[in-house]
């Protein structure tokens, strides 16, 4: 498989890596950039655990080629806490038990982050809609929705 130099911004840092054409963004983030906060929960596009932001839009990194992100801004869960302060969503998911096992949490928070950037005060229905591509098996979503509402109100 051919390798090409990929230049992109990950969590605010410009990176240049030689990347095979078929490398998935998920594998690039986890294996090359060492950002294991982004999770794989399925065989491709089923569960949302790998959700990251590409130029601010929520995207499934497990069905996105790394090469397609050339020149773009990628944000992962690791980018949200700034200078030791958790983001409003992270704080709310922690305080309100929006996370149990935690495995869907990074993708869930990134999907919610995209929602709040586009709609800072969503209603419950809008939150459920925006998170409908992210499966959680622990919470029944009740406390996830409460967490997003709390973050939006904060």
């Amino acid at each position: 498989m051919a390798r090409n130099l990929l230049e992109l911004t990950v969590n605010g840092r410009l990176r240049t890596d030689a990347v095979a054409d078929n490398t998935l963004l998920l594998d690039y983030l986890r294996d090359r950039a060492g950002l294991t906060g982004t999770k794989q929960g399925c065989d491709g596009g089923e569960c949302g655990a790998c959700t990251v932001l590409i130029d601010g839009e929520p995207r499934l990194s497990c069905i996105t080629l790394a090469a397609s992100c050339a020149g773009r801004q990628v944000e992962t869960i690791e980018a949200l806490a700034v200078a030791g302060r958790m983001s409003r969503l992270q704080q709310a998911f922690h305080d309100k038990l929006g996370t149990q096992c935690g495995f869907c949490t990074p993708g869930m928070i990134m999907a919610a982050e995209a929602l709040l950037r586009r709609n800072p005060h969503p209603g419950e229905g809008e939150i459920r809609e925006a998170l409908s591509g992210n499966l959680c098996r622990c919470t029944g979503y009740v406390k996830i929705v409460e967490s997003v509402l709390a973050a939006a109100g904060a």
Partner: protein
Amino acid sequence: MTQVAERNVLRESAGEARARSPDGAVGRPTPLIDGIEKVTGRAQYTADLPFAEVLVGRILRSPCAHGLIRHVDTAAARAIPGVRAVITGEDFAAPYGVIPIAQNEWPLARGKVRYRGEPVAAVAAVDEASAEAALAAIRLDIEPLPAYFSAAEARAPDALPLHDNKAGNIEREVDQAFGDLDAGFAAADLVREQTFHYAEVTHGQIELNAAVAVYEPERDRLTSHSVTQVPYYLHLTLARCLGMDSSRIRVVKPFVGGGFGHRVEPLNFEMVTAALARAAGGTVKTELSREDGFLTHRGRPETDIRLKLGLKKTGEITAVDCEIVQRGGAYGGYGLVTILYAGALLHALYKVPAVKYRGYRVYTNTPPCGAMRGHGAVDARHAFESLLDIMAGELGIDAFALRRANLLTPPYRTINDLQVNSCGLPSCLDWVEQASGWNTRHGRLPRGRGLGLACSHYVSGSAKPVHWSGEPHAVINLKLDFDGAITVLTGASDIGQGSSTLLAQVVAEVLSLSLERIRVVAGDSALTPKDNGSYSSRVSFMVGNAALHAAQEMKRVLVRAAAKRLEASVDDIQWDGEQCRVAGTDRVLGFVDVVEQALAETGTLTVKGSWSAPPETQGGKFRGAAVGSTAGFSYAAQVVEVAVDEDTGAVAVERVWVAHDCGFAINPLAVEGQVQGAVWMGMGQALSEETAYHEGLSLRANMLDYRIPTAVESPPIEVKIVESHDPLGPFGAKEASEGALHGFAPALANAIYDAIGIRLTELPASPDRVLEAIQARRRKERLRASMAAPARADRGGG
């Protein structure tokens, strides 16, 4: 007395009045102590662990559902550059199985394959491409045998046995009778019998399975990092299957992304990864796919139930006669426990004078079933609560009144010898009745909307451990050293349920200290005491009690040290955590000084606490009596509100009110989260989840075709915590993670009946099934109308 005030006077089994922990450690909603790692992405799950020089492990699966393995040719695979190990079933020393008397599974099939997708061979290679090439190069020579995909096919007289020692493919037959059944039915005013059918469902934890095994050839030592709920079982099984002394093995549990029973049994890939690491003399990481998870399975079996109940006009149950058949899949696993649970918990929720139960666990050529949240009792609960509802309708008794007519009062011994020491079900019923507006809304909502009620219960840990060694059922070590920090060492696996947080709360409460002084180290066999693991909702009750005892022992040591330094008697020391004082004086000593004094005497403090379920809670003497026995039953009642679209058969759950008796909520935040999660998982099974196979080939081995509800389909779930203060539970606590699951499906079925007058006796209530039932009723109505029409014409003519 308010609930909070009540909490302040309760507590600790000794019941002593004392200072509370400054953050009110127990009884206060407490975020998870490992929650920050989870929300920041810093939590490391098995697949996230960094290792150098890691080989890629891959597993080859059987394309055949049932067959004799003639030969597995690995020569070509071994010759591929980069391949470091190729193994087959011949590379293992012994078969395994979670139940010591049913160990009939090899990590890689040996002699025979028994389901499509069963692991047959495995490779370790320097990269994925070489590993995949090696798998493709392995030649399997398998002679197909007739295969059986339903319990009925497998039980047919001419069916070949999957396992030589199990004629008729019956893994376990249960035949239990309690009380005088004939007299019970004779005393009934109404007797009804009904059959039910349940699709197979699976756990669907979001973390994919993974294992990393590190083998040190120079020392013949193995370290296994895995997704397990029970590191102890895995440890025993690694030793057994690899033929290694258990002292050479270390099992580490990293963060685990959910379990729900999938990971209670040691799973084939864990032993395979370890064997690959040994064969390759290095480190192997095996990451499995979502499809692999469906093939590894161990979920809730496809089940058929025939249930007959006798009721008096007043609603009292007089007799229960039930037969349950479970399609168990290809191997033993937890199977015999599942079929026993189904019978034990079927009727023990209520006061029942006579029971007959027959259960059949059947081997079939499908992936093995096992323990899944609500183990064994979920389908049985649906049947029981549905038939109660049917009969309540016939007798003209309200659903709540019927349940209330059968409540037991603790202390109570059920007819199958289960001990009940606390029961908050009456309060649960009262709350959901009021909160749901039952009395003004049930039977009165517009067509297409309905309310349904069901009750449920569950064990707070199995009172008899699977591996009966005579040891205490739970052990906790506490360490306190020069740094003034208390480390809780526990083998209990936090798999997201919050067990580490709960243990820290218990210790903080007893020592009247802040949670900030306490850290928890969990799940590393080199450091932490053995624990029987996270299953059967045992940790809060059993390990919570061990933590309570350990903390009390630590307190005794510290109080003695304080008394010595303050030159006072132990009885005069007033313990307030960060400071203690000689009662009635101003002579005080800070915590750090107390610790210094205690360490001066003995060095690093390590104390232990342990707990075992009392003998009277361990069940009766009959065969299988241990299953279902527990030191504390949780109770729950729930009302579900549905909207049914009669044109499409779609069922929407609008709202759920659930009251759960967890004895005492050590962490009310986690209790709510667990109860919501349990109810919701019940909803998935009730509405949309089912596996499917074509001649043993899994047809829905992904998260799109296996329909786990999304946020959009999931309702608000309102939780009421009921606290019955169990006499044996730590601070009165019982389980909160499973008991509310069982009630959802029957409450839904009862709500659908209230909405459209149709009784579903099959799960899931998927749109196709609901629509089929609606159409069947329309056909029946048309037929009745067409038969009635000529009769009316005749009368008109006469």
